[in-house]
């Protein structure tokens, strides 16, 4: 990779126009991987535990709505039965304690401020500068230092259904984290593939609310992933409602309608994914949300919302052994096993390994790209011409 990059650079300095042609070869590779994996057995819809990874990737007060998005999802999955121990909540900033918050300690996602999302029982696992691309990838792949506490780990197995929700500012195939780094669609696709290889999931439901969100799931190639995004390539995702007291938008449109539908879903509901997606109206949210089902074996009608948003719905009644069961033996054993009472584990926040890579441009619209390529060509040609004309 290094060698090829070095060659690219040398060639690139001499002639930039070459760059435009060489970007799409990755797609063929991805397609090949997908074709290879599509034949593998699928495990069916049986799962025994549910997990959720909820990520708000942007900070600062004016991105209040992204934190509200993630907290709204947190509230919903918790209400539907995923325990806190199975939810990894990543919030890049803490708006509830922001000085500009007129309602300190509270986060709302509707202008009428009906529900306080920050409520009384909330567990943020990664906060502020801990929300980095590296930490997110580590959560997914399970590659953690031994000292990382249980609450920060995604301890899934091959019977786990995982709901991954992301929100923030993004563009074509990337999502910004913290204004100083970004995760690309390839990174998430590779992370999911690694999860698949280690049997860390049964099924994944990936939801993302950001501009050009549908590009983020376009690179996935591992089986049993259902994905949805809020807007197509070239489209923005819009906020839904402003609160004049808070002074900023409090929620994004796509997430708002998803949450609105989820409000009528309870733990034992049989509502399907199809019903959720029929409920969301592209006209109302001002963008075309997308659903990717080709990696998934079950049809949208057969997927219950509670398969991903809720706890598991399985219970098996077992008979009690008879009272005078002779099989039970009563030999006094010496205590060989350690016993302890419950102690609260105090997690000490780990200093994040900051990645400091900054990009000089986020502009990615096709016209701009074309313009950039041509103008740099002209500039280069001009320079070369100038040097030679002076000879």
């Amino acid at each position, binding site marked *: 990779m290094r060698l090829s990059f070095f060659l690219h650079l040398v060639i690139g300095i001499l002639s*930039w126009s070459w760059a435009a042609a060489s*970007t799409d070869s990755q797609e063929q590779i991805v397609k090949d991987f997908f074709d290879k994996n599509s034949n593998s057995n699928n495990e069916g819809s049986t799962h025994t535990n549910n997990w959720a990874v909820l990520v708000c990737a942007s900070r600062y007060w004016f991105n209040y709505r992204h934190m509200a998005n993630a907290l709204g999802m947190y509230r919903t999955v918790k209400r539907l039965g995923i325990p806190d121990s199975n939810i990894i909540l990543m919030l890049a900033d803490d708006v509830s304690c922001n000085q500009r918050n007129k309602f300190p300690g509270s986060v709302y996602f509707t202008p009428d401020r009906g529900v306080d999302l920050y409520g009384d029982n909330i567990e943020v696992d990664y906060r502020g500068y801990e929300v980095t691309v590296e930490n997110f*990838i580590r959560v997914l792949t399970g590659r953690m230092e031994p000292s990382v506490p249980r609450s920060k780990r995604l301890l899934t197995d091959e019977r786990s259904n995982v709901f991954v929700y992301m929100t923030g500012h993004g563009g074509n195939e990337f999502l910004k984290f913290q204004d100083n780094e970004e995760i690309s669609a390839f990174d998430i696709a590779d992370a999911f593939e690694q999860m698949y290889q280690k049997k860390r999931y049964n099924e994944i439901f990936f939801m993302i609310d950001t501009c050009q969100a549908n590009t983020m799931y376009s690179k996935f190639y591992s089986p049993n992933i259902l994905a949805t995004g809020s807007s197509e390539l070239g489209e923005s995702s819009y906020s839904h409602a402003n609160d004049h007291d808070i002074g900023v938008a409090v929620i994004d449109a796509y997430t708002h309608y998803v949450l609105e539908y989820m409000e009528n879903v309870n*733990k034992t509901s049989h509502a399907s994914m199809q019903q959720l997606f029929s409920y969301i109206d592209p006209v109302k949210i001002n963008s075309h949300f997308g659903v990717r089902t080709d990696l998934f074996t079950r049809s949208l009608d057969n997927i219950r919302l509670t398969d991903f948003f809720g706890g598991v719905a399985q219970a*098996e009644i077992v008979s009690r052994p008879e009272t005078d069961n002779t099989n039970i*033996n009563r030999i006094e054993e010496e205590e060989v096993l350690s016993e302890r009472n419950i102690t609260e*584990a105090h997690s000490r926040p780990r200093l994040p390994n900051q990645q400091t890579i900054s990009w000089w441009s986020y502009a990615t619209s096709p016209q701009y790209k074309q313009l950039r390529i041509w103008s740099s060509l002209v500039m280069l040609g001009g320079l070369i011409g100038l040097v030679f004309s002076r000879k």
Partner: protein
Amino acid sequence: MDSSPQPPPTSPRDPSKLFHQKDSLRRSIVAVYWTVIVLSIPLWWTTTSIQRLSLPFNGVREQAYRTLELPISICLDTTDSTFRKEVADLLARKVAENSSRWAGTAPSVKSITECAGTNDFYTIKNHNSSPYIDGRQLYFPLEEPNASSQLVDALASLLVPYTTSADPDRRVAQYSSRYRLAFSLLNEDATTGDGVMRWKVQEGLRAHIKPILKRLHALHNFTIESQVQFHAPLAFSPRQIEEVYAISPEDLTVFINSAEWTLSSSSSNDPVLHLVLFIPSSTRRPLHILTKDESISPSNAFIRPQWGGIIIHTPTSLTSTNELPSKDLDIIFATFASQLLGLLGVPQLPSTVQRAPSDLKASFSDWQLDALLRRRTLENAAGSQDTLLSIVKLVNQLEGMPVHEDVRDDVENALSFLTKMYDTSHSSLRQTFEFSARSFNLASRAFSNPGLLALLYFPTEHKYAVYTPLFATSGLPLFFAALREVKRWKESRLAKHKKA
């Protein structure tokens, strides 16, 4: 510039004679720049390179596609060799019929003399009433008509008790070398009175749980924790049917109110098995479970697959200190014990086979333990092979993924344990299991090594975007300066030649 004509005398100074305009000085400055650049390339190369140690690809591929076969020696204590042959044939047919159930096992029927030298064998002895087991011996009525087919049926359910129908909800927890058992006594609402304030958990554990844990010592290590909660509300209201309260099958699936109950501490990363005793509030007693046909189930206990067991219990009579009566404690911990056995995958004995009184010293028989050991060995071996293959595949696939010494060592050790496992598979089941578990643990550790994190993907355009402003602005002037110097040097040489 030697070729240029002599300067006119009017000019105060000749620019070509100035020190800083000397050709040699200018050329050496340009040369220094290029020397620094050329010399720094190796430094840049080494500082940006990723350590990718080579993994034993061939070894992994070789071991990963081997299949493990655990021999099962069945010794018939009878002199009748035709009967032995008959049993062997029937067993072979049974194995062929249901090969997935017998996968990974290689049963063989031998005479008692053939078995003498080997260890870990099962003996079948004649006995003229209902069959029973004692240790690894099965006493079976061998002289009855149809004895051979009945014996083979009994052997099948004793040796390979795991079928898809026996584990319908994938109840058995996935293998881990360490488990945490969390015992919780939850009062729905102790403020309504008649709550259970304490229980003699040590006594219950000692009588019912510890013997099981000791028996499973070879497979797992256990940590136990316990708690009592006085307020653990349900997230739904049970239905009232006449005098009793009942939980519908649908509500039963959401019985665990995880939002409000804290069921285990987060003190380690080991998987947790929960065992919950739920005492309904005094206003909702008695609380029962409804079966699918809306009748009240005789049992008040249920299992959430791979998660744990729950008992709903209405205390019979409380002592003055609000302690759980010892009679109740006995029943409850006996139920916990059977739930735990189910969750850990200890198979049940077939109903036709009893255990001898002397065998009851242990909480479950050797046949059951061996079946579990075989199952876990095969699971671990397959898991270890899959994980090793995945590591090799991912490292090949993701070029930016570093491989350090610890990963390589773990992979190599996992591989060597896998080899040892195959070597011992014919001598000792316990040893084979031990090696399979160690190999699986090492392979998993290698896979989740924190250093094994691939570099993030950056599109080619981004690399241009970062490096072009840096390299193009400094590189182009340097490049053309060098070009010009070379040109001038050539020109001057040409001029010299002409002069000469």
